[in-house]
C-alpha cells in the first residue's frame, strides 16, 4: 500500500532557487542539494559495549499529519503518524534497509521452494515480544492470518490474495511453511513492508504488543503517543533512547516552529520553503534523501485520446523533466525516465533518458489526428507536496506543443473518492517499491490501483513469467524487457522522484539518508541517540 501523505501539506509552487542536482538516477544515498551532510553515527555506537539500550533520555519527534483516526494497529496504518508508530512498535520478518536492499529482521532466513509456491520462514532464536513472550512460529501464522482476514482485511491483504491462509504449516517452534496457490517470488517484498509487523497470538490493538524497538506506553489519538525502549529488541544494544514521544503536527508551520523552539528534537517533512530557516540555525540540521517516491501523471490507455499510443508518447515528450523537478519540487528531486522501480536491482539502465522534444511530440500528435491541437482535462489536487505545482508546469509545457490542458482542482477527499482510478488524465503518488511489487499494485489488470487501466498482453505475459521465475538473473532479464515495453507505450509519465527532507537538532545522532521514501531514516527511531 502506498503511504498516505498529509493532506494539509502545501508547498510553494515556485522557487527561483537553482537546482544543484545532476540527475544521476542510481546514486544511492546521496546527500541533497541543500548540502546536508549527515555522518552515520552508527559506527561510533559500538563503543559502549554491553548494552546501549535505554541510556539516553526521551526523544521527541514531530511527525507531519495525524488526526483523531490515528491508530496503533500497525497492520492498518494509513497516516504518516500511524506509519511512524508502526515502525516503533513492530518488527517484521525482514525489512528494507536504507538502500532498499532487503535484510532479515526477526527471521533468520526466508527461502522459497523451486517454484516459489512455498516459502520457509526460519525465525531467529531467543527473540521476545514486548510482553516477554517468545517470538514463535505460531505468532507468524497468527499474523499472516490476521493480515488476510476476509472479514476485516488489512492494508496488505490485497497483495497476499494468493496466500493459502488455511494451510500455513508450523514445522517446529521457529519454522513455518507459507504456501501460495500461485508462484509468488515477491514474498520478501511484501513481508518487508512496515504493514507486516509480527504480533503475538491474541493481539489487541488497544494494548499493542509487538517486537519493535519501542513498547507502548501512552496514546491519545490526534495528539501524541509515548513509548519506552524494548530491552530485548532483536538488534543488540538498540534502541539508544529510553523513551520516544511522537507528536502530531498536521500544520507545517507549527512543526517547524516546534523544532526551532526546541520543543521537539526531530521533525519529518520539512517544507522546502523552510529549509533555509533550519539551515540558518546553528543548532539544527537538514536531512535530505533521494528516494524512489514518484509523482506520475496517469493516462488511461483505454480512453481517448490516450488509447492512441502516439498521444501517450507525445505527452511524455512534452515534459521538460529538469524544469519540472526545479519548479514543482524546488529542485529537491531527481528526473525520471517514465519508469518506476528505480531502486530495483533489475532496473533497466539501457533505456536512454527521455528529454523534452516538442517537435517530435507535435509530429506524433499530428499522426494521431490532432494536428489542429488537442484539449484535455487534468485532474489535480493536494494529494502530495508538489503535485499541484507539477500540474501547473505541465499545463505550460503542453501549450508549446499545441495541447490545451484544463486543470480540474479537487481536494484530496474528492480526488480519492468514487472517481479515483476512473480519471482519464490525472496524477498520483507512489512510494519506493521494486518493479514486480509495484506492477502487482498498479499496473497488472486486476491490480487494486490500476489507474492507467494498463492491460498490454505482451507485457502481462512477461510479468506473469517473471513472477514465477525464482532464478534471479532470468527474472531480472524479464523485468528489463517489461520495463522496455512500459517505456515505449505505458500510461504513466514518470517525470521525477521526490526527495524526503527532514529537520533535526544537532544533538540527535544516528540519522542518515534513506531511499525508502519514509522520512527520518525510514522512521529509524532505534538508531537515534541524544548527545549533550
Amino acid at each position, binding site marked *: *500500500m*502506498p503511504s*498516505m501523505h498529509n*493532506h494539509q501539506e502545501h508547498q510553494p509552487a515556485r522557487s527561483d532557487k537553482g537546482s544543484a542536482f545532476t540527475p544521476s538516477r542510481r546514486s544511492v544515498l546521496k546527500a541533497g542539494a541543500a548540502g546536508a551532510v549527515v555522518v552515520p553515527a552508527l559506527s561510533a555506537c559500538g563503543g559502549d559495549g554491553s548494552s546501549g539500550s535505554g541510556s539516553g533520555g526521551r526523544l*521527541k519527534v*514531530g511527525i507531519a499529519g495525524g*488526526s*483523531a*483516526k*490515528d*491508530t496503533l494497529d500497525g497492520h492498518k496504518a*494509513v*497516516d504518516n503518524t500511524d506509519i511512524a508508530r508502526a515502525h516503533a512498535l513492530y518488527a517484521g520478518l525482514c525489512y528494507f534497509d536504507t538502500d532498499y536492499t532487503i535484510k532479515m529482521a526477526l527471521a533468520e532466513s526466508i527461502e522459497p521452494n523451486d517454484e516459489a509456491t512455498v516459502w520457509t520462514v526460519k525465525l531467529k532464536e531467543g527473540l521476545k515480544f514486548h510482553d516477554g513472550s517468545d517470538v514463535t512460529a505460531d505468532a507468524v501464522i497468527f499474523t499472516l492470518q490476521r493480515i488476510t482476514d476476509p*472479514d*476485516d*482485511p488489512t*492494508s496488505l*491483504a*490485497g497483495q497476499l490474495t494468493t496466500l493459502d491462509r488455511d494451510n500455513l504449516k508450523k514445522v517446529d517452534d521457529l519454522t513455518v511453511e507459507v504456501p501460495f496457490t500461485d508462484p509468488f517470488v515477491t514474498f520478501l517484498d511484501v513481508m518487508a513492508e512496515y504493514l507486516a509487523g509480527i504480533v503475538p497470538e491474541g493481539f489487541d490493538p488497544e494494548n499493542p504488543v509487538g517486537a519493535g524497538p519501542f513498547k507502548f506506553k501512552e496514546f*491519545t*489519538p*490526534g*495528539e*501524541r503517543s509515548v513509548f519506552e525502549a524494548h530491552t530485548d529488541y532483536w538488534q543488540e544494544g538498540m534502541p539508544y533512547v529510553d523513551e520516544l514521544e511522537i*507528536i502530531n*503536527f*498536521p*500544520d507545517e508551520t*507549527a512543526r517547524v*516552529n*516546534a523544532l*526551532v*523552539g526546541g*520543543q*521537539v528534537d526531530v521533525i519529518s517533512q520539512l517544507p522546502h520553503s523552510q529549509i533555509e530557516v533550519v539551515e540558518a540555525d546553528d543548532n539544527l540540521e537538514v536531512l535530505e534523501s533521494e528516494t524512489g517516491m514518484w509523482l506520475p501523471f496517469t493516462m488511461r490507455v483505454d480512453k481517448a485520446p490516450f488509447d492512441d499510443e502516439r498521444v501517450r508518447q507525445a505527452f511524455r515528450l512534452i515534459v521538460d523533466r529538469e524544469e519540472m523537478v526545479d519548479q514543482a519540487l524546488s529542485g529537491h528531486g531527481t528526473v525520471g525516465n517514465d519508469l518506476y522501480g528505480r531502486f530495483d536491482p533489475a532496473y533497466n539502465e539501457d533505456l536512454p533518458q527521455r528529454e523534452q522534444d516538442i517537435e517530435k511530440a507535435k509530429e506524433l500528435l499530428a499522426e494521431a489526428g490532432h494536428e489542429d491541437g488537442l484539449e484535455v482535462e487534468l485532474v489535480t489536487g493536494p494529494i502530495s507536496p508538489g503535485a499541484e505545482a507539477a500540474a501547473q508546469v505541465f499545463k505550460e509545457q503542453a501549450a508549446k506543443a499545441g495541447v490545451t490542458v484544463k486543470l480540474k482542482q479537487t*481536494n*484530496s*477527499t*474528492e480526488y*480519492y*473518492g*468514487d472517481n*479515483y482510478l476512473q480519471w482519464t488524465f490525472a496524477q498520483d503518488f507512489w512510494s519506493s517499491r521494486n518493479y514486480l511489487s509495484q506492477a502487482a499494485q498498479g499496473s497488472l489488470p486486476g491490480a*487494486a*490501483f490500476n489507474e492507467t487501466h494498463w492491460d498490454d498482453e505482451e507485457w502481462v505475459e512477461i510479468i506473469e513469467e517473471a513472477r514465477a521465475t525464482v532464478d534471479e538473473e532470468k527474472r531480472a532479464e524479464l523485468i528489463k524487457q517489461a520495463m522496455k515495453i512500459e517505456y515505449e507505450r505505458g500510461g504513466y509519465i514518470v517525470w521525477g522522484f521526490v526527495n524526503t527532507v527532514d529537520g533535526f537538532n544537532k544533538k540527535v545522532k544516528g540519522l542518515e539518508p534513506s531511499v525508502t521514501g519514509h522520512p527520518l531514516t525510514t522512521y529509524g527511531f532505534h538508531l537515534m541517540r541524544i548527545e549533550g
Partner: protein
Amino acid sequence: MTRLILQRLFYGLLTLFVVSLVVFLATQALPGDAARAMLGRDATPERLTALREQLNLNDPVAVQYGKWIAGLFVLNLGESFANAMPVAEYLGPRVSSSVALMALAAIVATPIAVAIGAYSALRRDRAADHATSMVTLITAAVPEFAVGILLVLVFATGSLQLFPAVFAGSSEAVLESPEQLVLPVATLVIAVSPPIIRMMRASMIEVLESEYVQQARLKGLPERTVIWRHAAPNAIGPVAQVIAVQLGWLAGGVVAIEFLFRFPGVGMALMDAIDNRDIPVIQAVTLLIAAIYIVVNLLADIVGLAANPKVRVSSR
C-alpha cells in the same frame, strides 16, 4: 421576567435543534463518507464495505440522524467514527483544555480592556486616547489568526525567542506548561479586547458628561471619588453585554487559534472531525459552541434586563 427568560430558553433549545439538523445535513453534502475519508487512498472495495458495516453507514440518513438524536435524550453523544471512543470521553479533556484557554483569556482581557477604555475616556482627545483608538481599530480589523502569526514571528521564532511558538504538551494537563500558553492566550486577549475597550470608552464619556457627574463635581467631591464612585459603576452596565458577546465569540474564535498553535482543544477536534467526516464529533462540538453562544447571550440579556428598571418593573 421569569416568563421572558423561559421563553428565551425555549427558543435557545429550538435553535440548538435546528443547528444540529443543519450541521448533520451539511455533513451529508460533503463529498465522501467517513469510511472513505479514513481509508483515504487505501480504500479498496473490500475494506470500504467492512468499515461501512462497522460504522453503520449503510443505514438511511434519516435513521442515522434519528439514532443520534435519540441517544442525545439519554445524554449519549455516540461514538467517534474515527477512533471508536465514546464522544464524551474523547472530547472531555479537549473541552477542559479549551475552557482553560478561554478562561485565562477572559480573566486577563476583561479588567485590562475595561481599564484601558476608562483611561482613554478620561484622556479624551489627547494623544493616549488617539493612540488607543487607532490600535483598537487596527486590531479589531485584523483577523485573529493574523495576530497570532505576528505574535509568533515577534516573540517566538524571530530574534526574541521568549515563548514557545506551539503547544507540544498533552491535553490532559495544559496548565502544566504555562509558558506554552502565553502566546495563544495573548492572541485571544488581543482579539476580544477592542470592542470592550471602545464600548467602555464611549460609555464612560457619556456618563462623564451626564448631569449627575457634573452635579457631583459641583458638590466639590474629589475627582477620584467622582470617577470611581459615580461614573465607573454606571458606565459598566452597557459594557457587560459587550463583554458577554465577546466571551461568546471566544467559544468559536478559539478554533482558528487552536489550529495555529496546535493547541489540543475542541477547535482542533472539530477541524479533525470535519476532515474525517466524523459526524458524531462534529455534532457534539458544534452543539457545544452553539450552546455556549446561546447561554452567554441569554445571560447578557438577563443582566441587561436586570439593569433596566423599566423592563424589570413592566414585565413583572
